[in-house]
């Protein structure tokens, strides 16, 4: 029955087909080949990334669940734990931005729910081509509307994120969503099909023909004109059903009758069954006729591969199925037995009394091929700083305004205003500062979260870029008053069959691993998205780090905005002549050239430790890290975000470092933090900095109304804060209006 080159139709190589035949000990039938093709796709099998992901440190004192489950979990003490995970939905969002982004959010929410956790926050990391192009505006608007639609309706606040626009993301936007959830430590559920004889239930929405072959055809292949023809495979989200599913799952969890839970995402039933069985070392036998369907005439192939949304696979304790079904019915949902756990490690699929597929769960998962793909280091443009004319002092003010209003630095309010960032009544630090903070209702502390990743840095110097992403995420938590604890990551890369991309991939991971070790933040999970290539153009290597941190006391929440005039402004860390890879270099000179700013991990650790200690000691009124746009932009942002009567500053940057004006104002040297402290605390803070071995200089004072930057006797910038604010706030709405 099989055609000439049967492997091609399911995206396998001839070699992989041979391996499949060996594992089965016979020719696979059409359905079996489909299952294998899907599960061995890059998206499901991680066949290319596995060997490198193993280098990320994943253990630490607080880690209750590392990589390999639906989400990582860390211990919060006193019987409470935090589950969190990030995931990409890049290719679906390129085809249908609203539904693609919405179903991405739905998917990550379900990942958290499967752990037995109640989602408490979402963050989103987005990349688009330049917004001057209508297509990119359409994608951006659609993605934001889709994230908002799903998250708002579901009732989980979207509290933070990031957006960058670069030409390399033209036609290949990135949409990464992270979710955090709370779970009682004793109630953590895992995606394991334990206990032969236990019933396997399919709960939630009926199964339709949505997204068939999404995983293998969309996420595991580069983009070309034919992508348009794959359109009917878009999945459609239903956040209303998603919310009902949450409520039913939480209620079912509390019965203690759930043995294992897995969501149905990429590769649908096939993936959920083989993964839960493989994790537990068991098998699953499915009666496909029992699967509730939305459309008549679906083939076993379609039922097994469907990516219909808002579904969960539940392995229940024997005898508990009726109680669970009743709970789901109360919420207007079906939870139906579609199979049983078996002892022999086989995934068996029966339809109409006939066995239609019989494959070892391990063959679909653990025994999938693993590749060490070839790599080749690439040359990247290097900046000759000496040949670059410095910024003229008379232009400093104009360039500050220009940077504040650039697409990559401007206020993200246009985005987060469309997200309900308050539902749940936990949001203690709203979007607009360095990290988001959620308070705990039953204890004094809270949790902070931030997502960071600078693709331009990673393209110019992948290893350094990977480390910088981790350091910046940690710094964003620290300045907000939290101790960085652990992270999840989403690795968005081009086509791994190109040696240059593999080199980027390995380098980024090794850089991240180094930084994770230095900062003591293990990686508890993540996601890899390869094949972000459109018509031969690969995206920048874009790792997105989603980090979580803890606050012992919610009173430690620290904002970037100034609080009272007269507060002293102190810069921690040294400024070097770092212009490479920066926003100013690109805008002012049209250059994307490296290397990006170097990172001294020891200095980074010290400056963060100091900042946190100062915050905990109650010395700090405002804190903000220097990142994109450098020191001048960081200072201006603190003024713009300032409270009444504290929307300005007067500082002298002479002691800040940097031998050039452009690097002093706009250079992006990392490991720098700007603090504002009460006048009486300034001396103490400087002393504390000396004890920590951190360079610290007092720059000036908080004022109101104007941003004044001087150098020695000379005034470099003297701008009305309101004007800078107008440029900063107006930029995105204006760009999006076309």
């Amino acid at each position, binding site marked *: 029955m099989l055609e000439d080159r049967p492997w091609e139709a399911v995206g396998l190589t001839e070699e992989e087909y041979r391996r499949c035949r060996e594992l089965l000990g016979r020719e696979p039938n059409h359905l079996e080949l489909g299952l294998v093709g899907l599960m061995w796709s890059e998206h499901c099998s991680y066949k290319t990334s596995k060997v490198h992901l193993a280098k990320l440190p994943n253990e630490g004192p607080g880690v209750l669940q590392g990589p390999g489950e639906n989400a990582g979990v860390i211990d919060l003490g006193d019987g409470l734990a935090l589950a969190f995970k990030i995931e990409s939905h890049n290719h679906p969002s390129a085809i249908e931005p609203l539904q693609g982004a919405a179903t991405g959010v739905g998917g990550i929410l379900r990942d958290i729910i499967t752990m037995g956790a109640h989602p408490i926050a979402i963050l989103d990391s987005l990349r688009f081509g330049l917004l001057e192009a209508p297509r990119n505006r359409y994608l951006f608007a659609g993605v934001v509307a889709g994230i908002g639609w799903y998250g708002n309706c579901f009732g989980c606040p979207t509290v933070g994120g990031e957006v960058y626009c670069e030409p390399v993301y033209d036609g290949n936007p990135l949409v990464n969503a992270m979710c955090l959830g709370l779970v009682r430590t004793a109630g953590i559920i895992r995606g394991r099909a334990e206990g032969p004889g236990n019933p396997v239930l399919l709960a939630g929405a009926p199964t339709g023909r949505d997204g068939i072959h999404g995983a293998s055809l969309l996420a595991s292949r580069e983009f070309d004109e034919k992508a348009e023809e794959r359109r009917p495979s878009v999945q459609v989200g*239903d956040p209303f059903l998603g919310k009902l599913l949450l409520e039913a799952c939480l209620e079912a969890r509390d019965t203690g009758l759930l043995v294992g839970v897995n969501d149905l995402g990429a590769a649908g039933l096939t993936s959920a069954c083989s993964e839960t069985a493989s994790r537990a070392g068991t098998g699953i036998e499915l009666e496909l006729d029992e699967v509730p369907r939305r459309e008549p005439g679906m083939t076993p192939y379609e039922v097994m591969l469907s990516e*219909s949304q808002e579904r969960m696979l539940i392995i229940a304790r024997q005898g508990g199925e009726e109680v669970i079904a009743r709970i789901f019915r109360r919420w207007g949902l079906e939870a139906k037995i579609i199979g049983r756990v078996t002892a022999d490690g086989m995934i068996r699929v029966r339809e109409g009394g006939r066995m239609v597929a019989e494959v070892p769960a391990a063959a679909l998962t653990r025994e999938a091929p693993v590749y060490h793909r070839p790599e080749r280091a690439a040359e990247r443009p290097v900046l000759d700083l000496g040949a670059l004319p410095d910024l003229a002092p008379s232009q400093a003010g104009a360039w500050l305004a220009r940077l504040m209003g650039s697409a990559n630095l401007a206020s993200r309010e246009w985005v987060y205003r469309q997200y309900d960032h308050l539902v749940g009544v936990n949001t203690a630090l709203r979007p607009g500062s360095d990290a988001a903070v959620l308070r705990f209702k039953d204890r004094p502390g809270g949790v902070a979260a931030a997502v960071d990743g600078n693709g331009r840095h990673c393209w110019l110097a992948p290893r350094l870029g990977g480390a910088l992403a981790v350091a910046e995420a940690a710094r964003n938590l620290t300045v907000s008053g939290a101790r960085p604890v652990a992270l999840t990551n989403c690795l968005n890369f081009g086509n791994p069959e190109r040696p240059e991309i593999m080199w980027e991939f390995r380098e980024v991971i090794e850089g991240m691993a180094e930084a994770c070790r230095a900062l003591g933040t293990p990686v508890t999970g993540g996601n890899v998205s390869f094949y972000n290539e459109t018509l031969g153009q690969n995206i920048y290597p874009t790792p997105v780090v989603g980090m979580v941190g803890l606050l012992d006391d919610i009173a430690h929440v620290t904002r970037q905005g100034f609080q009272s005039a007269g507060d002293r402004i102190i810069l921690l860390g040294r400024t070097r002549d770092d212009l490479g890879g920066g926003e100013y270099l690109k805008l002012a000179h049209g250059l994307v050239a490296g290397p990006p700013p170097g990172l001294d991990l020891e200095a980074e650790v010290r400056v963060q430790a100091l900042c946190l200690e100062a915050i905990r000691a109650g010395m700090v009124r405002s804190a903000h890290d220097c990142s994109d746009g450098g020191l001048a932009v960081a200072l201006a942002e603190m003024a713009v975000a300032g409270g009444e009567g504290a929307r300005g500053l007067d500082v002298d940057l002479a002691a800040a470092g940097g031998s050039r004006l452009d690097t002093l104002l706009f250079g992006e040297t990392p490991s720098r933090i700007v603090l504002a402290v009460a006048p009486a605390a300034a001396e103490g803070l400087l002393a504390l900095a000396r004890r920590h071995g951190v360079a610290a200089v007092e720059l000036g004072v908080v004022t109101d109304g104007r941003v004044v930057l001087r150098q020695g006797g000379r005034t470099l910038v003297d701008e009305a804060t309101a004007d800078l604010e107008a440029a900063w706030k107006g930029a995105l709405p204006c760009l999006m209006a076309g």
Partner: protein
Amino acid sequence: MRWRARVWVTLRAGVLDPQGAATRSALVSLGFTGVQTVRAGKFLELELVAASREEADRQVADMCRRLLANPVTEDFRYELEGCQEG
């Protein structure tokens, strides 16, 4: 010349319609138990100025393709009629 266009935008077959499904079950629970399916779509009425029927027709088709309908998930249909100057 002034024209009136009526545009129907409907979901493509096979595309899930959560709105239609929710509306159907609401109708059933209101006692309209005979309702089998509901599909929800959009209806737009446009007035436009164009030199000729052909021109108006070309423009409306273009609007549908470019903005009014999402080709990934939706189909469209329209009717055109001349209307009196108001």
